[in-house]
């Protein structure tokens, strides 16, 4: 094996095909898209060089900043929700349900395998106000309240998106974090218990520090997933009402493919890439520091 890997030509042969495909379907379009940021136009009209006009325009476009704010708000709320709820679930699996957690884990994991569109339709119907009254409004009516038009205002629509996406992914983060917590050696926990740590103090001082690496992975997964949210929002609200629930991805998609402004769309995409990069670097750096401490 060492002999093979020591041979540069062998390495080239092993990596070549994958690298070629990666370059063609990933790197070339990425660089191409980067190039578009200094052009404007589309496939029909052709492209004209506009220098940094797209960047100037993006800086002064209130819709871009609305979308950035929404993206960040969504990422923060949903990441906190997903990881926190997932962590609670995993604690439940490990410390309460113990060996009998299999069936509960499967049930909680179930929404993860459902198609996004199906989940979105389910939530649409649950929170529906017209033409038929959905289950949520029926409950509100039963307690004497007036029906709420959940998708009629941005704040309510955001609430439902957040509830839906957290519900959808609790199972995934539950299992991911479960894998981390279940690995904590039983003798460590045992000795902590002997030292008098119980309940929350055990979780706070022993379980969380020892499961920190997997917790950080979960946060990185979640942040990067939520910053790039697209399908669940398009299926649930299509960015509405108005554009009050439009993340950057949706605005980029509309700009490029509906309005035919490929250059400006690429500029928005670049902005999203930069945000993702900053967040990832930030989390990685903080995680590295924590690991050296431990």
């Amino acid at each position, binding site marked *: 094996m060492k002999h093979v890997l020591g041979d540069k*030509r*062998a390495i080239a*042969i092993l990596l*070549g*095909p994958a690298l*070629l*495909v990666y370059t*063609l379907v990933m790197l070339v379009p990425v660089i191409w898209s980067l190039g578009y940021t200094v052009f404007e136009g*589309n*496939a*029909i*009209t*052709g492209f004209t060089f506009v220098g940094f006009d797209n960047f100037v*325009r993006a800086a002064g*476009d*209130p819709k871009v900043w609305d979308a950035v704010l929404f993206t960040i708000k969504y990422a923060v709320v949903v990441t906190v929700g997903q990881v926190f709820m997932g962590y609670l679930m995993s604690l439940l699996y490990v410390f309460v349900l113990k060996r009998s957690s299999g069936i509960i884990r499967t049930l909680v994991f179930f929404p993860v395998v459902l198609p996004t569109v199906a989940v979105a339709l389910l939530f649409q119907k649950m929170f*529906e*106000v*017209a*033409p038929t009254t959905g289950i949520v409004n029926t409950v509100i009516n039963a307690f004497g309240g007036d*029906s709420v*038009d959940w*998708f*009629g*205002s*941005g704040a309510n629509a955001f609430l439902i998106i957040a509830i839906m996406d957290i519900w959808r992914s609790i199972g995934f983060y539950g299992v991911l974090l479960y894998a981390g917590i279940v690995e904590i050696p039983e003798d460590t926990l045992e000795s902590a218990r002997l030292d008098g740590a119980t309940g929350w103090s055990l979780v706070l001082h022993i379980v969380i520090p020892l499961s920190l690496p997997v917790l950080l992975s979960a946060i990185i997964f979640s942040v990067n997933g939520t910053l790039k949210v697209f399908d669940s929002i398009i299926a649930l609200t*299509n*960015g*509405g*009402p*108005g*554009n009050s629930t439009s993340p950057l991805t949706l605005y980029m998609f*509309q*700009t490029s*493919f*509906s*309005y*035919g402004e490929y250059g400006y769309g690429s500029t928005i995409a670049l902005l999203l890439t930069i945000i993702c990069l900053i967040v990832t670097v930030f989390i990685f750096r903080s995680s590295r520091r924590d690991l050296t401490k431990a």
Partner: protein
Amino acid sequence: MTRPMRRRAALVPIVASAGALALLLTGCGGGGGGASSAATQFTYLINSENTTIPGQLTALADDQCKAENTALPLKVETVPQTNLDQKLQLLAGQNSLPVMYAAGNAPDLTKTLDKSGNVVDFEKALTDLGAIDDIEPAAVSTIKALYGGKFNVLPYQYNIEGIWYNKQIFADAGIEVPQTWDELVAAADTISKTGVTPFAASGEQGWPLTRLVGDYLFRDLGPDALQKVADGDAKLTDPEYVKAAAAVADLGAKGYFGQGVGSIDYDTAAQQFLTGKAAMFYMGSWILDSMNNPDANKIGSDNVGFMPFPAVDGGKGSIDEYPANVGLPSTLNAKVYDDKVGAWLGCIAENYGSAALQSEGSISGFKANTEVTGVAPLTQEIQTTISKSTSSVLWFEALFSTKATTTSQTNAAQLVTGAISPEDFMKLVQADLDN
């Protein structure tokens, strides 16, 4: 001996994958280049929601246009309407648009396609074929108003819009057909007191609401109200324009659209009217299909009346100017237009009008050259109204960019629910017109 041999064997996957990719790339390129040479099929790309036109064309292909179909067989492809614009842009970019295609959701895209030489000039093409008289002049004038003076699309549909009303509900409430906006609001008020929703409207679609804003502008400020906005001579944020949005928002504030208007989709809105739950329904004449269908129309087609959008007191516009459109129109690809395609065009122009009216009761901008019998009375009424009308107006977003159109339609529901003010609504749309 063994080493080079082995290396050569190991190189096979690389060579193979590079070869496959090369094939893939040339395959894509070849498809694009090939389509621009003469067409071998009469390919037609249309939004999948529209089943009327493909059905009619297939019928023509078996009957009146048999010879043309033998020379150039019809082949229909569909795409969901929401994906149509993206698909057209990609196909146009690859130079592989089909022979005939639905021309995009907004006139703006069609104009772009025309600038890049993808759209046939029908004025010239039909004149050359001697078939220009097969088109209704009203349809031609609507198309020219939409496409900057050019006859760029085929009027497979010709619709006028107005308010459909339930005669029974009007009689029960003791109200006459409103002639002015104030009378319309008063009528809605009377109706809402009887427990019936005055207006059915789809806020999910948005355009049924912005149509009201546009029509109010045409009635109040005259038929050139939105041309002025398009030309930059007026702004939607001007007080006289905001007034129109405020008038429509006011209907919403009073609850005349019923509950959850933002979630009501097109079919639900139609159903509300057709089952007698709503008294009025602003819609185009394409809805005749459902109105004449006893399975869908539970209130009975003789119970349905059609009134023009009312006048606005002291306004410059006339109540006789019906908002008109050509639906989601189709056009021909100029890059593959030749004699065989021309033969198809001539045959369609000559026969489509009567065929569509006869079999589907659908009104097109093609003249009905052969006598049509058994047309439903409501359809007859609309047809008469169309042939009598001398001038028409467009709709709110007709001259807007795709972006401003999207903004207008996605914010319409918020306008009537009061989530945004009329000033803000107009400001949002104007902002997209400005850049």
